Structure formats: structure tokens, C-alpha cells
């Protein structure tokens, strides 16, 4: 297991370096930060001076090495846009994204799992078929359209839920969380649904097909032949065996949730890192963009690692001690 973790970490570092390099290669094409940093009255000389001082004239590789070197020591520089240290800006926004992702994840997993198990057990039932068909609508429309539609319906026409922002937050160990207040939770419902719908559909369908496959295995047949109750079989035996693939995909999906938050956050003006990234892109705020991309990579790598470690706890066949 230790070897496994070491290998994973090495791979993670590689990923981070690759991500960093790709982002730097890309920034060149995203526009000129200097334009935004200086007002329209700026002279040509002003621009040249600022470009020089930002090191934008250096070759990409030089900029990259400089950035990565500092990033390793935790210094991501100062945002071109808001003039605050990038680390601080991101850490301030991260809880908003994470709590949104968390709630969407919870919705997606709980609903996806329940419906997946249901549609697998009632394989040919009318309700199950209906759920299966309608769930595809969730993956057949782009996220932003669903978000806009939800706002139109629930905020504008029905007036039930807020259309934007995070609502009230409450501090929890120094972190402001909206999930702890009623108002905040109300604000989270629409974005969380928008964000979680796609993942829910995926998880549901995956759980269903895995469950169907497991239900056909010999050990389930043998369990039935031993007279175990349907409940024990479905939830005690079958579900646990669907976990491994489901966890893999769910883990990857959680990463996607963080990435798709870019869209949801800008539709709902949710003040998370996704919105920060979009703003950074518009402003060509290179330090924020690179830090964000690294952050996403770190989140993904972490999730992957957790997922892999979860395998070890779920599937005894993988434990090293038994080899």
C-alpha cells in the first residue's frame, strides 16, 4: 500500500507539472493582462514597462519554472485583478465551491444510488422504465440551460427560491458556510440541483447496470439458494459489490462537479472558485488561473487517491497482506 501511495504521489506531481505547463502554454493565447491592469489612458511606454515587470516577455518555460518554483513554497503570487495574494483569494472562495460541490455530490449520490438500486431491482417495472427514460433528459441538455430554466421557474415565476448568491453564511471554525443557515441552504438548492443533475443520472445508471450484473452472479444465486432474504441479498450482498466501480466513477464525478461549477457558479453568481476562474479568464489574471488549474488537479488527484484507498477497505482481495 505504501508503494502504491508513493507511486500515486509521484504521478500526482507529474500531473501537476503537466497541468502547470499546459496552462502556461495557454495563457499566451488568452489575451493581454496588461490591457486590463492599466486604464485606457495608459501610454505605450506604461504598457511596455508593466509587461516587462510582470515577466510576460520571458519565454513560457521561464515563466513556468518561476511560477512552479514559487508555487512549491506555497506562494502563488498576487492576483492581477484584485491585487490580493492568490492563495488568500482562493482559500476564501474554496469553501463556497466545496460546500456546493458537497451538496450536489450528496444529492447526486444519494438520489443516484437510491434510484439506481430501485431501477435495478424493479428492472422491468413501469416506474423504473419511466425513471430510466426521463433521467436521460438530465444529460441531454447543457448545464447552463438547466440553470437558467430553474431560475426562470423557481425564482422569477414562482418566487420560491433565490436566484443568485450564497445567502447568509455562518462561520464554522473560521470558515464561512452557507450550508449552516436556512437562507444559505435555500440559496444552494437551485445551483446544487443544476450541478448534481448530470452526475446523478450517471451514478444512477451506473449503479443500475452494476447492480444488474452483480444480481446475476453465482454468489447471489447461491445466497438466494441459502434462503437469505431479498433485503439481505439486495442490500447486504449486491450493493456492496457494486461499490467498487461506483466509487471510481463517483470519485471522478466529484472532480467533474468542481469543474462544472464554473458554469453553475457563473449562472447563479455563486462566489466560489469557478466564478473566480471565469473572472480571472476575462481579466487574464494569470496567477489566479494557474493556481486554480493546479487546485483542480490537486482535488482530482486527492480524490483519486482516496478512491483508490477506499478500494482497499472495500475489496479484501486488494490488501497487500493477503497476497
Amino acid at each position, binding site marked *: 500500500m505504501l508503494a502504491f501511495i508513493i507511486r500515486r504521489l509521484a504521478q500526482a506531481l507529474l500531473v501537476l507539472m503537466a497541468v502547470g505547463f499546459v496552462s502556461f502554454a495557454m495563457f499566451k493565447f488568452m489575451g493581454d493582462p496588461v490591457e486590463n491592469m492599466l486604464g485606457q489612458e495608459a501610454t505605450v511606454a506604461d504598457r511596455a514597462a508593466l509587461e516587462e515587470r510582470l515577466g510576460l516577455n520571458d519565454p513560457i518555460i521561464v515563466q513556468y519554472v518561476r511560477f512552479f518554483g514559487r508555487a512549491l513554497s506555497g506562494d502563488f503570487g498576487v492576483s492581477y485583478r484584485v491585487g490580493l495574494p492568490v492563495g488568500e483569494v482562493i482559500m476564501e472562495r474554496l469553501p463556497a465551491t466545496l460546500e456546493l460541490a458537497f451538496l450536489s455530490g450528496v444529492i447526486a449520490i444519494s438520489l443516484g444510488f437510491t434510484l439506481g438500486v430501485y431501477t435495478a431491482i424493479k428492472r422491468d417495472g413501469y416506474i423504473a422504465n419511466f425513471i430510466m427514460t426521463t433521467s436521460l433528459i438530465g444529460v441531454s441538455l447543457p448545464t447552463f440551460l438547466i440553470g437558467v430554466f430553474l431560475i426562470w421557474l423557481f425564482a422569477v415565476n414562482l418566487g420560491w427560491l433565490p436566484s443568485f448568491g450564497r445567502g447568509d453564511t455562518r462561520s464554522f471554525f473560521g470558515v464561512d458556510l452557507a450550508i449552516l443557515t436556512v437562507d444559505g441552504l435555500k440559496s444552494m438548492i437551485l445551483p446544487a440541483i443544476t450541478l448534481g443533475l448530470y452526475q446523478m443520472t450517471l451514478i444512477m445508471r451506473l449503479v443500475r447496470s452494476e447492480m444488474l450484473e452483480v444480481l446475476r452472479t*453465482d*454468489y447471489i444465486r*447461491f445466497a438466494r439458494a*441459502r*434462503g*437469505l432474504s431479498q433485503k439481505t441479498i439486495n442490500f*447486504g450482498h449486491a450493493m456492496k459489490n457494486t461499490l467498487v466501480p461506483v466509487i471510481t466513477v463517483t470519485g471522478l464525478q466529484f472532480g467533474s462537479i468542481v469543474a462544472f461549477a464554473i458554469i453553475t457558479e457563473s449562472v447563479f453568481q455563486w462566489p466560489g472558485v469557478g466564478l473566480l476562474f471565469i473572472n480571472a479568464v476575462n481579466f487574464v489574471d494569470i496567477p489566479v488561473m494557474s493556481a486554480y488549474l493546479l487546485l483542480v488537479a490537486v482535488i482530482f488527484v486527492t480524490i483519486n487517491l482516496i478512491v483508490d484507498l477506499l478500494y482497499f477497505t472495500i475489496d*479484501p*482481495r486488494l490488501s497487500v497482506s493477503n497476497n
Partner: protein
Amino acid sequence: MSNSPLLQVSDLIVEFPTRSGVLRPVDRVGFDVRAGEIVGLVGESGAGKSMCGSAIIGLIDRPGRISGGEIRLNGERIDNLPEERLRHIRGKRIAMVFQDPLTSLNPLMTVGQQLIQTIRTHLPLSANDARARAIGLLEEVGIPAAAARIDAYPHQFSGGMRQRVVIALALAAEPELIIADEPTTALDVSVQAQIMALLKRLCRERGTAVILITHDMGVIAETTDRVAVLYAGRIAEIGPTRNVLSTPSHPYTVGLMASTPSTTGSLHTLSQIPGSMPNLRAIPKGCAFNARCGKAFSPCFQDIPVLEPVEGSEVACWLYDPAYQNTKETSGASE
């Protein structure tokens, strides 16, 4: 009651509706199993032997269904019981052992968990008592250091040991009948001998009846008291094992025995039955074996033969029908 057989299967029909018509993997099969007896169901793949086993324990996959006949356990009809009642018979009164020990056990649960779960489903035991019983069972099936290995996962056992665990699971609630569906096919010869001996010993000790489903004539010969030879979903011949195997009457049984190679006895050319077992979708009219039978004559292509007593066994073949004894002579079927 005491004299009536433990299990009575009569005119059992299993059907699978498909889009090209209804298939009958089991067609009017009837046999008895007495307490403590080992009955073999032998046949080639597709003969319907496994389906018979599944039907008895009520585990036919949808959309298959029992569409005719009766199954009685100690005189009580069990083929039409609701699922919940049937569940209390499975494992408790009738247990089953499957072919592949590797896939029969849930890989994510320890063998102890699976045993205890099964024991407690059927017996009113505390968790500790159930565990003690589980260890006892593992010892009985010959697993060394059972108390230590009870918390091991199936993959930590070898193939033979795993099949022992499966047998322990089947015996967990002291069933009256065990259906062993090809219990040794996936094992090596040397281990097969161990497992068969174990199964035989345990069942004899407990007076448990066994239905042994296999395609291996050798295993049938060494293990069973009586044997039913199945062909295309029907019983071709049924009777005491020695009788059926040494002096087979049905042309199919005859052919089967003659085409089975042996490690002992004289080395003769294997005879062969031409063709292969018909697909369930295309079972010929009359006797299902007629197309492959060297002795087939006109009634074989018309009507399905029924089991008739022939020399201590029962045989379903028009050759032995008194009405056709003469015709047979004249038909001059080749030998």
C-alpha cells in the same frame, strides 16, 4: 409419511417463453428421492439437469417458470409456494451446492460472515453461538485451523478449500436434501475425489439426501444409489445406478456408455452417437433422440415415449413398448 419419499417430483415442466416460441428445458420429468439417498441426474449440456435442480429449489430465473407438474417435499407441495415461504425452505430444508466455488462465494465478505448470516437466517442462534457453529461446520468439512480461518476471505482459500466452505454453507441449517450441481467439475481430479468423498460422508452421517447433478459417468457410478439419465429435457432412463450403467436399455444410455472412454478395462474403439443434442428450439417430434438413434422406427417419429419398467429400470423408449415388440424386429434397424 415415513414411507413416502422425501422429495417427489412428478411431471415437472419448466418453460421459457422466448420470441421464437416457448422453450421447455424440462419436460415432464418425474422422480423420487428418499431420505438419505443419493440420486444422480446425468446428461449432457442442455439436457435440463441443472434446470431440474433450480426448479426444485425454486430458483428459476425469469422469465422461466414451472408450468406443470408438482414438487412435493415430505408430501407438501412446494412448487407453488409464495416466494417468502419458499425462502424458508431454501437453505433450511433444501440446500444447493454450485459448480464453481470461486464464484459461489461473495468475495467481499469473510466466510464467517457468510456462514453466520446463513445460520442465523434459519436457526434461532445468538451471534456467538452461530459463530461457534460456523467454526464447527468448517472443521467438519475439513478446513484446518477453522477457528482462525473463519475470518478469512474466500480468495484466501484454494479451490478445494473453497468448495468445502460452500458445502459447509449448504449444511449450515441441517437440510434434508442437498442439490449438488456439478460440484467438482471445476476442480482437479485429485481434489474432486476429496470433495466427493467428503460430500458422501457428511450426507451419510446426517442422513441427508442428495441430488447429484453431473455429466460425469464415473462420478455417478461411484457416488449415486439411483440415477436418471436426461436427454433434451426428458428422462430417458431411470433406475438403480449399477443397473442403468452396466446394462443400459435406452439407446441413448447405451451410446453414452459406449462413447465414454475409461482408464480401466479393455481398450476398444469408442463408439459414437452421431450428431448432437437438439437445440431446445428444434426438438424433433416424437422421441427427442430419434434423429440420432440407430434403432429409430416409425412410432419414434410420432409420439413421445413414456417411462416403462425394463429390467429393473424405467426406460422411455418405444423399443420396449409391448405394442411394438414385433415391429421392432421387422424394422431391421441396424446394429
